[in-house]
């Protein structure tokens, strides 16, 4: 688990970047058993057509570039591609959009992904607090996080009980529990996600700076969840500081 994830991170650091593109981030998540869609990175149009065939139409296309972190702003996410003809046409469009947005954009490829059934959107995040270390965030996506900031935090590592409490304590919990006749969401799948992110970050805490799994689709009870988009920001691992002076600086800075 750790080795596979580290391989991805080391490669990114070697290329002089600290921000993982979606594909790379998902490789890291996958190494820890987080549910990510069956998607493939196509370097050429032929590859793209082949992958789309394997995955089965309709597919989604997402262009991967370290310079384009906000993919929808750059219009490099194209959805619901139904035929090989359409894919060929959109292959040009997506590259054109990327060039328009950032002429210098380095293009790593185009992610060919299955069209996912929409679920209730949640967001899971990680940030590093200067006092307490890595903190895990959970909330519902969309307006719940953007406008209402209805999120909750725990310091990593968390226990299963922490995970369950996090889910229950957000104000929008009734939406997950099944309000107004809706089926309840797969809470156990969310618990599992939170625990796995905690494990991942605890393992790689020297490397991980920030992480956003946003959105994650959660389906009905028993039907699981899937990470739709992910971002990870990493850092060069710091050496352990042991000298008295350094310890002093930490305490008295």
């Amino acid at each position, binding site marked *: 688990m750790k080795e596979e994830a580290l391989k991805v991170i080391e490669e990114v650091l070697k290329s002089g970047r600290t921000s993982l593109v979606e594909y790379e981030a998902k490789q890291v998540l996958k190494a820890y058993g987080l549910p990510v869609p069956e998607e493939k990175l196509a370097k050429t149009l032929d590859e793209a057509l082949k992958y789309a065939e394997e995955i089965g139409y309709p597919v989604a296309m997402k262009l991967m570039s370290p310079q384009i972190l906000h993919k929808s702003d750059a219009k490099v996410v194209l959805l619901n591609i139904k035929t090989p003809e359409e894919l060929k046409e959109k292959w040009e469009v997506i590259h054109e959009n990327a060039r328009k947005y950032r002429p210098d954009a380095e293009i790593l490829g185009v992610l060919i992904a299955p069209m996912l059934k929409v679920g209730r959107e949640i967001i899971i995040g*990680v*940030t590093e*607090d200067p006092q307490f*270390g890595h903190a895990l*965030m959970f909330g519902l996506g969309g307006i719940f996080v953007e406008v209402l900031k209805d999120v909750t935090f*725990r*310091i990593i590592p968390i226990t299963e009980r922490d995970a369950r409490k996090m889910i229950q304590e957000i104000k929008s919990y009734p939406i997950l529990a099944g309000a107004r006749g809706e089926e309840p969401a797969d809470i156990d799948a969310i618990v599992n996600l939170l625990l796995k992110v905690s494990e991942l970050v605890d393992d790689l805490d020297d490397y991980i700076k920030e992480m*956003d799994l946003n959105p994650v689709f959660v389906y009905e009870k028993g039907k699981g969840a899937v990470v739709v988009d992910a971002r990870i920001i990493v850092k060069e691992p710091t050496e352990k500081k042991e000298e008295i002076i350094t310890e002093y600086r930490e305490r*008295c800075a």
Partner: protein
Amino acid sequence: MVEKIVEEMRPFFDPKAVAIIGATNKKGKVGNVIFENFKMNKERGIFKGNIYPVNPKLDEIEGYKVYKSVKELPDDTDLAVISIPAPFVPATMKDIAEKGIKSVIIITGGFGELGEEGKKLEREIYEIAKANGIRVIGPNCVGVYVPDTGVDTVFLPESKMDRPKSGPIAFVTQSGAFAAAMLDWAAGAGIGIGKMVSYGNKLDVDDADLMDYFIHDEGINVVTFYIEGVKDGRKFIEAAKRITKVKPVIALKSGRTEYGAKAASSHTGSLAGADTIYDAVFKQTGVIRAEDFEHMFDLAKAFAALKDKLPKGDRIGIITDGGGAGVMASDAVAKFGLKMADLSEETLKYLKENFPPHAVAGNPTDVVGDTDAERYRIAIEGFVNDPNVDAIVVIVLFQVPLLEEEKIIDILAEYQKKSNKPIVAVAMGGKKTDHYARILEDKGVPVYPTPERGVRALAGLVKYAEYLRRGA
């Protein structure tokens, strides 16, 4: 085996002999007030140790021999309290190290909080302390107050600041001003403080050390913290998890407002304000967060009296002699996430059989305005025996004409003692009420001036009991 931390901290709270470095006979000076505190407590027979003033310019202060330097101090000295100007402290620390004194309280300010020069001094002190195994409280603090042993380094004279009586509450604060105001207030409110520690710049001894110490302090039932910031977060978390399994910790964290979106590129980073993170830490470690100063001491008071009889659940029974107060308490039960107990049939029957027809058996039970103390006894007896009730709020409006004050106080104290359910009292009123409330508290029943505050304190007990049962 005695824990290392207990050994290390003992001289701060109960020294064999204290050296007061910078003691002076000039009235009002810090070095004078601290000396006077110890001297006075010695004369009162509370402080049992020896007192050694240190000052190169004096031979004696008020009959006490003054030592010219630390090197001359008798060998039983195990605590040094320093109140000399900052630039002289490092040299004194060297002498202290040579002398083998292992506990030092540095009252002096003008260190890290003043910038680079002060930080350099602090660093020197830290290195000497670390290299010689010396524990340091401070600098830039008011130090320690322990009413039972007479240790009092609070440099505000008794003429300006009252000292609280002894009690099972520990109070820890970064801010010295807050420490002084709190002690003065606690004294006025009749709240007992067993140990107060103000650690200022936290050069060495910090929250985590104190939590580890208080685990073993049998005189302390509850530890309260006024926190501005934590430096070693992991150490704090680990220590907090250890102590909350043994005794409750209440934290008042200032700086609640967001410190704005940090330079964070992710969603999560921009949402993680300092306060949100502290909330998470407190939740995970079982530390109970106080909303404000009042809440902190309302909780502390409840835990001090009731730590050993925590409620088994969240079902609250309310007894009142005023309808309105009963409604306010019921609202508070909902507001603070508790439940109103459903009284059993037997209890309702018992109450109705023993009450006059106009008293209201139920929850709340209203013994009404013509009540005497005996009617309260019936109500309390019913609630205590009802398996559906986990904790009891008794609202006593002492103003009603037929209520015998001493009798109701005795009844409450009696049931507090013999029942395993926690009872908190609410008494609204003025001077006369305060008088009775104080007597009631001395008998082990925490009293609150409004139903809301009483129920909120009880909610803290319920929350902590739940934590002990199930973990964070």
